[in-house]
C-alpha cells in the first residue's frame, strides 16, 4: 500500500531482481539461500535509500541503478558456472512446489516481525509517506522511517520470491494496492481492501494453478490482473453513469442556461423549442443535444 502511495511501484520489481544476485552469490559461496537473498535485498534497499537522498536523483533512477546491478551480478555468477546449481527458472517464475517447511517458518516469523513493526510505526510511516517535510518538522524520525520502509519491502520480497518468482513479484506488491485505491477513499478501508484482495487472489490463483496445472506465480498474478481490470472497468462505468446522472440533474433546472442561449440567438432557440422534429440548421449539435435533453427530463419531472 505504502509502495503505491509513494509512487515507488517498481521497487518490488527492482528489489526482487537483486534477489537473484544474492541467491547466486550465496550458492557460489555455499551460504544459506535465504541469507544471501536477505543480504542482497537489504543491501539494495539501503543503497536505494542512500541514492534517493541525493536531491538530483529520484527513486526510480535509484531503483534502476542499484537493482539491475545486483541482478547483473547474479547473472555473472550463474553464467560463470559457480552458481550452477541455481534453478534459474524457479527463481525467475516461482515454484510453489519448492516451498518447504522451513520456508513456511521463515515466512511466518518475518510476517510477524513486519506486522509488529508496522503496528508500532503506523502513524509515523503514514505521515512520512504523505508529507515527509512536515513530518520531520513535527518530530517524526523520517530517516528511520525511510529505512524501515525499505527493509519491510525487502522482507516482503524475500518471503514471496519462492512462490511468485523474481519477475512476477511486482504484481503482488502493486496490484492489490492499486485496485484498492480505485475504490476506497480513506486510508484504513484502502488498506483493508488491499490486504483482502491480495490474500484472496493469492488463494484463488493457487487453486487455478492446481486445477489447470500451470505455474503458481503466474496464475496468481493473472487472477490479480483480472480483478484489477474488472474493478477498473467497473469504476469507469460508475463514473460515466454518475456523470450522466449529474448532467441530467443539472439539465433540469438549467432553463436559465437555455435562456442565455436564446439571448444570443433568439430565433434559433424558439425554433428548437417549438418543433422537435426539424432542428434548425444553424444550431450546433451540442446545443441541440443539451436543449432536447433538458426538455425531456423537465417534462418527465412535471
Amino acid at each position, binding site marked *: 500500500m505504502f509502495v503505491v*502511495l509513494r509512487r515507488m511501484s517498481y521497487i518490488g520489481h527492482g528489489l526482487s531482481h537483486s534477489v537473484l544476485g544474492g541467491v547466486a552469490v550465496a550458492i557460489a559461496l555455499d551460504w544459506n539461500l535465504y541469507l544471501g537473498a536477505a543480504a542482497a535485498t537489504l543491501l539494495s534497499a539501503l543503497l536505494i535509500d542512500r541514492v534517493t537522498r541525493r536531491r538530483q536523483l529520484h527513486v526510480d533512477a535509484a531503483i534502476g541503478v542499484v537493482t539491475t546491478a545486483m541482478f547483473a551480478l547474479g547473472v555473472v555468477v550463474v553464467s560463470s558456472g559457480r552458481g550452477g546449481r541455481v534453478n534459474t527458472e524457479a527463481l525467475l517464475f516461482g515454484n510453489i512446489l519448492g516451498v518447504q517447511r522451513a520456508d513456511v517458518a521463515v515466512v511466518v516469523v518475518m510476517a510477524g516481525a513486519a506486522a509488529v513493526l508496522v503496528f*508500532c510505526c503506523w502513524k*509515523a510511516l503514514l505521515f512520512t509517506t504523505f508529507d515527509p*517535510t512536515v513530518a520531520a518538522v513535527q*518530530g517524526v524520525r523520517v530517516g528511520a522511517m525511510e529505512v524501515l520502509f525499505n527493509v519491510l519491502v525487502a522482507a516482503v520480497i524475500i518471503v514471496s520470491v519462492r512462490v511468485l518468482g523474481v519477475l512476477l513479484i511486482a504484481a503482488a506488491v502493486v496490484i492489490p494496492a492499486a485496485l484498492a485505491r480505485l475504490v476506497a*477513499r*480513506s486510508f484504513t478501508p484502502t488498506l483493508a481492501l488491499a490486504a483482502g484482495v491480495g490474500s484472496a487472489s493469492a488463494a484463488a490463483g493457487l487453486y487455478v494453478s492446481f486445477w489447470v496445472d500451470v505455474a503458481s506465480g503466474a496464475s496468481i498474478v493473472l487472477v490479480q490482473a483480472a480483478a484489477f481490470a474488472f474493478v477498473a472497468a467497473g469504476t469507469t462505468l460508475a463514473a460515466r453513469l454518475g456523470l450522466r446522472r449529474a448532467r441530467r440533474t443539472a439539465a433540469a433546472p438549467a432553463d436559465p442556461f437555455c435562456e442565455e442561449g436564446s439571448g444570443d440567438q433568439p430565433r434559433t432557440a424558439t425554433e428548437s423549442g417549438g418543433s422537435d422534429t426539424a432542428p434548425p440548421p444553424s444550431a450546433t449539435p451540442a446545443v441541440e443535444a443539451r436543449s432536447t435533453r433538458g426538455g425531456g427530463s423537465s417534462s418527465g419531472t412535471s
Partner: protein
Amino acid sequence: MLAAGVSAGYRGVPVLRDLTFRIDRGEFVGAVGPSGSGKTTLLRLLTGQADRFAGDLAVFGAPVRRGRPGPRVGYVPQVESVDWTFPLTVEHAVLLGLTADSRPVPWFSRAERRRARALLGRLGLGGLEGRPIGELSGGQQQRLFLARAMVRRCDLLLLDEPTSGVDLKTRHDVLHLLGELNEAGMTVLLTTHDLNWVAAHLPRVLCLNQTVVADGSPMAVFTPGVLRATYGTDVRVIRDGDMVFVADETHLLRPGSGR
C-alpha cells in the same frame, strides 16, 4: 528567534549569507524578495532542512541544526507540496501532526481526536472531519495545514507563500486567522510575493536577497532604493497618508521608455 551572521544553503552551496535579524515573541513578520532570494531557504533553515555553514541561529533559545528543527515550531508549506489524492480524511490528516508525541499504536486516542476536532472547528473546518482531503478547496487545504501544525503545541508559525495561488477571500480569511492567533501570542513569520498585501496588513517586513536588505515597518522599508536593491528592478512607490503602495513601473513596452 535570533540569527547572527548566518550563512546557509544546501550541499555546500550557500543561498543565504551573513543573515542577521531578531524576531521577538509575539511578532508578525513578512519576508519578501525575488524568486531565489532565499525566502524558502530561510523557512527551511528554521525547520532544520537546510545546512548552516556559519553564524548562530536559535529559536526559543535552542540552537537549530539540520535535522533538528527548533522546538514548538509549526510549518505550513505551500498547498501544492503534497498529493491531495492521498486517501486520508481531514481529521486524520490533522491527527498525523501529533504522531511524534502519540502512543505507538495505529489509532489516535479519544482525547487526541477531540483536540483535532476542536481545532478544525476553530479554523472553520467543522463538519468536514470525515471528508477525503481531496475534496477541500484551496483555502480549506491551507487551513488544514495550519490545523496540522497547531495540533502539536507550537508558538512559532512559519508559512511558505500562504497568499500565492489562493483567491481574495481565502487571503482575507487566512490573514484574519493569523491575526487572531498572533493576538493570542503566536509568533508568525511568512513569505510572500505580494508586497501590497504586506504593506497593507503586516507591521514588519524583512526584505531578502541573499541577505537582509532591509528590516522594519513597510512604511519605512518600502522605498524605491530598498526595492531596487531587493528586486534589481525599478518600481514605483506611492504614499498616501499612512498607506504605501508598490506598483510596477508603467509603460515598459512603450517605444522610447528606455527598454
